[in-house]
C-alpha cells in the first residue's frame, strides 16, 4: 500500500459519487438536444436525488430484508470498485481488490443483489426484470473477464493497475490486434452491463421492454435514490475503466498535487467524451429485440476469445 494509492482510494470514490449523476445528466442533455428538445439540464439527476432523499422510506408489504438491503449492497460494491480500480491514480490503496476477477465479482454481486430484490417484491414486473437481467448478466460476465484477460496476457498479471501501467510505458501495446479486438468486445459488454441502448433502454417504462427499470419499480424515496446513484456510479466506473485500459495517458503515477489534479482532469475529460459519444450514438439506435441480444453478446464473446487467442498466437 503506497501513499499514492491511499490518496487515490479517497479521491476516486468522492469523484465518482459527485460526478456520476452529472454524467447521466449530460448524456440525457446531449440526447435531448440531438432530438430537438430543450432538456432538463445537466444538474437534473442531482436535483432528483435530493428530492428523493428527502422523502420517507416505504417498503411494499410482504417484502423481506433482501429488498431493504439490496440498494446498500449495490452502492457498497460499486463504491469499493471505485476506490480500488485505477481511475485517477495508477496504484491502488486497497491492494488485492484492484484485481480483474475481484472487480468483476464485486460488480456482479451488486447486480445479483438487485435481481434478488426484484424477485423479493413478488410482482410480475420484478420477476420478469430479474430474469432478463440475469440472462444478460450470465452472457456479459464471461466476455468481460475474457476481454480484460486478453490485455493481461501480455502484462503477465491480472492486476488492473499493472495493465494500465504497462500500457502507459509501452504505447505500442495499445494497437496490437489483441488489444483492438478486446476494445470492441469491451465496448459492447459495457453497453450491455450498464443497461444502455441497444440492449436496454434507460428511459423506458414500457412494461414489455424494461429490464433494469422493471427490477427497481417498487423502490421509492431514499432507497430509489441509492439505486439510481449506484447505477450512475456503475456507468461512470465502467466507462472510466474502459478509458484507462486503452487510453491511459493522464493518470497520476506520482503523488504530487499537480499530478493528482491532472489525473482528475484527465479522467473527467475522458469519461465526459465517451459519455457524449455514447449518448450521440444512442440517438441513432433502436432497442434490440430481447431474443437478438444473445446474438450480440455471443459476437462480443467471440471477439474477446479471439483477442485472447491472438495474444497467444501473435505475441
Amino acid at each position: 500500500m503506497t501513499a499514492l494509492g491511499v490518496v487515490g482510494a479517497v479521491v476516486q470514490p468522492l469523484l465518482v459519487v459527485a460526478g456520476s449523476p452529472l454524467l447521466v445528466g449530460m448524456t440525457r442533455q446531449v440526447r435531448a438536444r440531438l432530438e430537438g428538445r430543450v432538456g432538463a439540464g445537466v444538474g437534473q439527476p442531482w436535483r432528483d436525488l435530493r428530492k428523493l432523499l428527502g422523502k420517507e422510506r416505504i417498503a411494499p408489504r410482504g417484502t423481506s430484508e433482501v429488498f431493504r438491503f439490496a440498494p446498500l449492497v449495490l452502492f457498497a460494491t460499486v463504491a469499493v470498485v471505485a476506490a480500488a480500480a485505477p481511475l485517477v491514480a495508477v496504484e491502488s490503496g486497497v491492494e488485492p481488490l484492484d484485481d480483474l476477477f475481484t472487480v468483476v465479482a464485486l460488480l456482479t454481486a451488486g447486480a445479483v443483489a438487485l435481481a434478488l430484490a426484484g424477485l423479493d417484491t413478488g410482482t410480475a414486473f420484478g420477476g420478469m426484470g430479474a430474469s432478463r437481467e440475469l440472462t444478460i448478466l450470465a452472457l456479459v460476465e464471461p466476455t468481460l473477464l475474457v476481454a480484460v484477460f486478453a490485455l493481461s496476457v501480455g502484462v503477465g498479471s491480472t492486476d488492473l493497475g499493472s495493465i494500465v501501467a504497462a500500457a502507459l510505458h509501452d504505447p505500442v501495446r495499445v494497437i496490437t490486434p489483441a488489444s483492438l479486438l478486446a476494445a470492441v468486445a469491451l465496448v459492447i459488454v459495457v453497453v450491455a452491463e450498464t443497461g444502455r441502448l441497444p440492449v436496454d433502454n434507460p428511459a423506458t417504462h414500457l412494461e414489455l421492454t424494461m429490464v433494469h427499470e422493471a427490477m427497481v419499480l417498487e423502490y421509492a424515496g431514499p432507497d430509489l435514490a441509492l439505486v439510481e446513484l449506484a447505477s450512475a456510479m456503475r456507468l461512470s466506473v465502467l466507462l472510466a475503466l474502459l478509458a484507462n485500459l486503452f487510453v491511459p495517458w493522464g493518470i497520476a503515477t506520482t503523488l504530487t498535487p499537480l499530478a493528482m489534479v491532472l489525473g482528475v482532469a484527465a479522467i473527467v475529460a475522458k469519461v465526459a467524451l465517451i459519455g457524449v459519444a455514447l449518448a450521440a450514438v444512442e440517438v441513432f439506435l433502436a432497442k434490440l429485440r430481447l431474443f437478438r441480444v444473445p446474438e450480440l453478446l455471443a459476437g462480443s464473446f467471440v471477439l474477446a476469445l479471439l483477442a485472447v487467442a491472438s495474444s497467444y498466437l501473435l505475441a
Partner: protein
Amino acid sequence: MADTAFTQLLNLACGALLLCAVLVLWRRELAVAIRVFAGQGAALAALGGVLAAHEGSVELWVVAAGVLVLRAGLLPILLRRALAASGDQRRESRPLVNVSASLLAAAALTLLAYAAARPLTRLAPSPATQAIPVALAVVLIGFFVLVTRRRALSQVVGFLLMDNGITAVGFLTATDIGLIVEVGVSLDVLLAVLVLQVLTTRMRESFGDTDIDDLRELRE
C-alpha cells in the same frame, strides 16, 4: 523495415483478416457481407505488401497489387451486381445454424486452427509462421459459411473467404509462391465467381429464389 514495426503491421493485417471473417458470419445483410469481404481483400493485400516490403521482393509487390485489384475491387463489384440482379432477397434470413451458435463455432474453429498449425509453426518459428493459425482459421470459417448458409450468394462469399484464407496461408508459409501460380489461382477464382453468378441468375429465373435447398430434387 525495422523488425518490430514489421511484426506489428503483420499482426494488425492478420487481425483484420480474422475480424472480417467473423463479421461475415455475424451480419445477415448480404450487402454488408460483400462490403466486409472487400475489406478482407484489402487486409490480404496489406499482408502481401508488408511481406513484400520486408523481403524486398518486386514480384511479391506485383502479387499484392493484383490481390488488391481482384479481391478488393473486381470480385466485390461482381458480387454486388449479382445481388442487385437477385431482387429483394437481400438477407440471409434463416441460416442452417443460427448466428449465435455459428459465432461460437467460429471461436472453436479458431482454436482448432491453432492446434492444427502448431507443428507447422514449430518448423520455422518467425513472426510470419506464427500467424499461420489465423489464416487457417479464415479457411475454416469460410468453409463453415459455405456449408451453413442457404442463399447462393452467401455461399459464394464463403467460397471466396476460404480462398482468401488459402492465399494468406500461402503468403505466410512460402512468402514467394511465384507469380505464375498466384495469377493462375486468381484467374480460377474469377472464373468460378463468374460461373456462379450466371448459375445464380439461372436459378432465380427457374425457381424465383436462390435457396440452395430447392435444388435437392433430381429431375430428368
